[in-house]
């Protein structure tokens, strides 16, 4: 079977527009969210905190034609895919000549296009909606935009899977390499900050009013965020043939479903535990080989409790790896979250440092895990398990091994 290695990665996040800046922000425990200007004076929004990318230089490598033709989600995906390809050392002709597939996960798709459409429809009626907006709204456009921008010739899949979308896309990319359908896959997750998500989570009372505090007893909820993380994934033999550096190897991805509820996690962590168990089994390693768990860790009372329960269920009481959540600093980037967490995990493997869960105040007896509170920690890291659980009960656990 073809193994799957990562040879390039691109990041677009509130923590930075490149890997180094991203790492530095997280290492310093910097919080990248705050009061959102648009909602500051709006009495309809009791919670004002969100994570938005303010540095508009993210778009500097995109042509004006791309920026005009596509919505912000597609543009995030294009920019970050280009950045990942550059990082991998693959040239334009490498991309056009090889069997390069594209797999992109998202929660809300081109949601800012939807929001513009609603505003126009409300103000001026349905017939006033410009065709250009309608043309850029479909979810599959995101994949087409990336394909067009990078000149890939292989299959394109856009696979919405809510907050597990990045892991789902990477899992599909891994399969395409294993099945020998592609030599290279550009895979990752993307979502832009959306009024719809901000409104929805607000109405579900899932948002925190100040800071995201995963696993802390006084945690109040999540922070809506945005971003994009993209990877160049290659069959091991393909990467070896071109003598490139390997950032990490995806050993396995466990994908399960809770079959329980659209918004609430299974109270016993059924799907989450099975996803972790499946990933460990498929990786052909033992539980003790997992050195660290990158948590889904949204900071909501229910999610963190259930994730902790599932981790204990899988690992037992004797050995539970450290578990931390960078959402404490980034907020929840929705469909991009798992991709950004994989980027952080690869950087942790490279630098042998575990990133912390910041804003931690007090341990919660219902979350009996070592969440690496508030400060990064040096550690010997060879394999990391990264969890992402989603609306609809879609659960995913990915195992990545240190590169070479």
């Amino acid at each position, binding site marked *: 079977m073809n193994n799957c290695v990562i040879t390039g990665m691109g990041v677009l996040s509130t923590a930075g527009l490149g890997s180094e800046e991203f790492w530095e922000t997280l290492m310093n425990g910097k919080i990248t969210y705050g009061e959102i200007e648009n909602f500051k004076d709006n009495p309809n929004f009791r919670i004002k905190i969100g994570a938005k990318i303010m540095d508009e230089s993210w778009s500097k490598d995109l042509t004006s034609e791309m920026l005009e033709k596509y919505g912000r989600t597609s543009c995030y995906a294009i920019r970050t895919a280009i950045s990942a390809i550059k990082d991998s050392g693959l040239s334009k002709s490498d991309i056009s000549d090889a069997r390069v597939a594209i797999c992109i996960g998202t929660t809300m798709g081109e949601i800012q296009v939807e929001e513009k459409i609603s505003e126009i429809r409300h103000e001026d009626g*349905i017939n006033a909606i410009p065709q250009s907006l309608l043309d850029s709204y479909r979810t599959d456009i995101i994949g087409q935009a990336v394909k067009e921008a990078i000149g890939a010739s292989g299959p*394109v899949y856009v696979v919405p899977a809510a907050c597990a979308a990045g892991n789902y896309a990477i899992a599909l990319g891994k399969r395409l390499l294993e099945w020998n359908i592609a030599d290279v896959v550009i895979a990752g997750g993307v979502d832009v900050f959306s009024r719809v998500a901000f409104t929805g989570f607000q109405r*579900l009372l899932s948002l925190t009013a100040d800071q995201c505090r995963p696993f802390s007893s006084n945690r109040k909820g999540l922070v809506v965020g945005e971003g994009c993380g993209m990877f160049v994934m290659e069959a091991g033999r393909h990467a070896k043939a071109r003598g490139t550096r390997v950032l990490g190897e995806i050993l396995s991805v466990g994908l399960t*479903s809770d*079959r329980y509820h659209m918004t609430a996690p299974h109270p016993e962590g059924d799907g989450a535990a099975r996803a972790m168990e499946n990933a460990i089994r498929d990786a052909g390693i033992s539980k003790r080989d997992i050195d660290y768990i990158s948590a889904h860790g949204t900071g909501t009372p229910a999610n963190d409790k259930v994730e902790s329960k599932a981790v204990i269920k899988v690992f037992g009481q004797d050995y539970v790896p450290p578990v931390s959540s960078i959402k404490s600093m980034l907020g929840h980037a929705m469909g991009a979250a798992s991709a950004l967490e994989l980027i952080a995990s690869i950087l942790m493997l490279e630098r042998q440092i575990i990133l912390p869960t910041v804003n931690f105040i007090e341990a919660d007896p219902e979350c009996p895990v070592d969440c690496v509170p508030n400060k990064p920690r040096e550690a010997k890291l060879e394999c990391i398990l990264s969890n992402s659980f989603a609306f609809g009960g879609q659960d995913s656990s990915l195992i990545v091994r240190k590169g070479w």
Partner: protein
Amino acid sequence: MSGKKVYITGVGGFTGTTPDSNNNFKILDEEYELSISGRQLRGVDRVSRLSIAAAVSATGKCNLKMDRNNDREYGLFYGTIYGALESVHEFDMVSVSTGALSVNPSLFPSTVLNSPACQVGIQLAISGPIYTVCSGIMSSLDAVGLGYLYVHSQAVPAAVAGGAEVITEMQQLMHKGRSRQGEAGGFIVMETEDTINDTSSIAAEILGYSTINIGASQTSHRIAELVVGMLEERDLTFGDIQKVYYGSYLDKSVDNELIGGLQDSLHIKDRLEQLETDWMGASGVIQIVTSLNKNKCEDGRINIFINIDDIKCSVIILKKIGG
């Protein structure tokens, strides 16, 4: 890729037959609601209800054990162009018109794009991977194709795959097909001999799936080459083909040229059937379901399903089994 033989053991679905004011085919709610009566579906949107009904109809005809005590992690693969977009729009319109505080929070779950697939997954107690696939007219054919690959490679023991679309005002503005549109929801069940208890449930064997990017220079030659490659890999000849089912979002002139080319290359002069109604992202699975339901396929004969737009082309080959 070597793997297990994949059989279709259940098919089900609904297609619109009632013309609306634009002469598109709608499905009346009562046509599918009967299939899902008694289920806990409060707040579940229309596209999800149709999807659940179609999936229930498909799985009801096979012997696959679908309950919460089942420890086999079946997969679900769901293709759609528009899917949850109408629910997203409705939710957002309320927020814009009357303020965020007036939106009904129970409708928020319907705004995530994987919502219809997850609603099906919850109702069928699917415990394995749930993939929503958005790839234009190919959506449900790609969903079936990915489901096939997952089962074939034994990544899952069985899979339910298909798709659904409904017609709405916004969707009409966005849609660019040139045929009459129709609402539809269809699913198939795919299993290997490991899970099949009763061989009489086998309707067909899926022999292969492939998808290619065709870019601006799509030619019948390239698609024919793909199909021929798939046939040759399975020791099949043009003579084995009973019919080619074709669905497209290409311009009419390009389509005519392509069809002519395919008919010549594959020697299937009178054996290519074009999609008359545009079932949108559900087109591929509806073509499969219809061909099997109406016994259009003859035992042992090969049927090929091709969906295409100006970006991509997907192909599934299946062999009918039984009368």
